[in-house]
């Protein structure tokens, strides 16, 4: 039986089906800002947010519970660390575009590798990404309340789908 997946960022089309936030599908500066700002509000309630996420995930897919350890504390921590990493990785000045970062700090490389591990080690199928993404948006919605505006929701959805696509591409990584 495979080990439980690492802090998952399962992709998959969510409420809107099509690719990315708009037909151009690049993360905009406005979207980055919306994500960074909203995450600052989630960080103080990280434990609750992680609980909400897994609660919703197992509600959507009860069969996934067996893939995780009985004690979920470490798993929740991993989830929040990964989300924090993603938000931090998006937070840089565009003026520093020509600067590279270490591979272990690079969002593209880390997420590609995450996708490869999800596929090769944990055998996570593509369709598993859908409910996980839905659970993420649901948890953010519950956690942020009124602060989870349509703009914030759209930004998270867009980034999530882009990361999901990156993870799926990572399946074929060498």
């Amino acid at each position, binding site marked *: 039986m495979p080990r439980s997946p690492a802090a998952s960022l399962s992709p998959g089309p969510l409420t809107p089906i099509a690719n990315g936030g708009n*037909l151009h599908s690049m993360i905009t500066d406005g979207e980055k800002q919306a994500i960074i700002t909203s995450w600052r509000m989630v960080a103080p309630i990280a434990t609750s947010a992680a609980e909400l996420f897994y609660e919703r995930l197992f509600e959507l897919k009860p069969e996934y519970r067996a893939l995780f350890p009985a004690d979920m504390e470490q798993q929740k921590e991993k989830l929040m660390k990964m989300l924090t990493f993603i938000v931090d990785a998006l937070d840089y000045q565009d003026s520093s*575009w020509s600067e590279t970062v270490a591979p272990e700090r690079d969002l593209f490389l880390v997420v590609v590798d995450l996708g490869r591990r999800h596929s090769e080690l944990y055998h996570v199928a593509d369709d598993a990404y859908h409910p996980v993404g839905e659970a993420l948006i649901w948890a953010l919605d519950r956690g942020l309340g009124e602060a989870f505006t349509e703009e914030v929701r759209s930004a998270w959805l867009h980034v999530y789908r882009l990361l999901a696509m990156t993870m799926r591409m990572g399946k074929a990584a060498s």
Partner: protein
Amino acid sequence: MAARLSLAGDDHAHGKGCELTMTGMDDRVEVMRGALADYDLAQVLQVVSIGRQFVAIEVSDAERSLGTIFAIGGRVIAVDSIMGGGLDAFFRLCELDAQTFRVFRLTPPESLPKPLGLVRELLGEHRRRRVQTPTVRAPSPPMPSPVPRAPPAPTKPPPAAPAKPSPPAKTVPPASKQVTPAKTRGPVLAVSSPKGGVGKTTIALNLALSLARQGHRTVLIDGDPNGDIMSCIDARDRPISGAYDLLFDHAQLPASLLKTTIDELSILPASGQRLPEAQLLQNDLAAAWRVLFDALMRNADVIIVDTAAGTYGPTFSILRAATHVLGVLQAETIAHRSFGVFARALESLPEVERPAVLGVVLNMLQPSESASVDVLSEVCGELPPSWLFDVTIPRHPAFLRASSEGLPLGLVDDKNPPPVAWLFEGLASEVSGRLHLHGPVQKRTKRLLL
């Protein structure tokens, strides 16, 4: 192919200047590879741009490398291809029929040249070039009358009895015609009829529901600027934006596409609370529709588009972009007489833009009325045998009840659906069979006796 980087400023666009060969980059590390049938080049560029690495994206066909795009920090730095370098080569590389991609991480050169552009902007420009519409925001002159490329085949002369309509021209391609390269990769089915009030919207809505229930990821688009789909389901106040807002770049897809209680069904309304401007609707929107269909098709198995009555105006753009058309014929004399326009309108389209006729469904049949039954027997003789669907939809009070409840037929009573609701399951099976949709197959051992 050796990769070359131009380090000269003004000559950058033409790929001139100092050279840097890929073969000398021993520290290159392949990060990923894949098939461009699964992900297009734009998506690969979007994905690498979430990171902060200096990357080379090499695209190849079955025989050779076609070119390499160098990028860092969301910018394209250089292009080296069989067509040369620079911006022109970038756009041409995006259009080539490449099959595979490989992404390498590289050590950046000490001095980076001036970027060719932001990935976001270059992809936007690429999209605009594909659409070949300078801007859809600025009004343009009304679309000219359609001019067929090939002279139309002569139609049969009208029959002597004036009550009988002309049979459709035989030059319209059968449903088996392959989708042309100008069309979206997946099936986009426009539901169309020359006459209004024949039940297009009802057919489109219930067909989409049935296809979704059969496991096909279905997007139902309201292509009628009047927004009849939302009226059918009593949800006119729900949409924030819709298809026409997307076509005119006034909205984003996530906010426009509506989820339903059926997992596999989503609905894209025509517009938000404000109807689209009439002047904008006169633009040629076929290319914009194709781009929208392509975007939706990445996560859908089939797209159904309800169209406005008639085959010209906004519907004409949809027909040019759709892969297939499903004609709705009301089993009633006047509708029958005007149906010949359906085939002639399709015939007037250039072949590369002409949707394949998936079939014609006879709607609102009244078995107790001889005039209605006569239409059934006449179309059986007039239409090509492959056109008419086996399923015929009768006029039935259940449709009125469904409308008053704001629901498709199949949702009015889950436990005891009206018998006529089952007809749409049959129609969906016929449609999915003709479209060769690869739905989930439930294998069961079949037997009769316990």
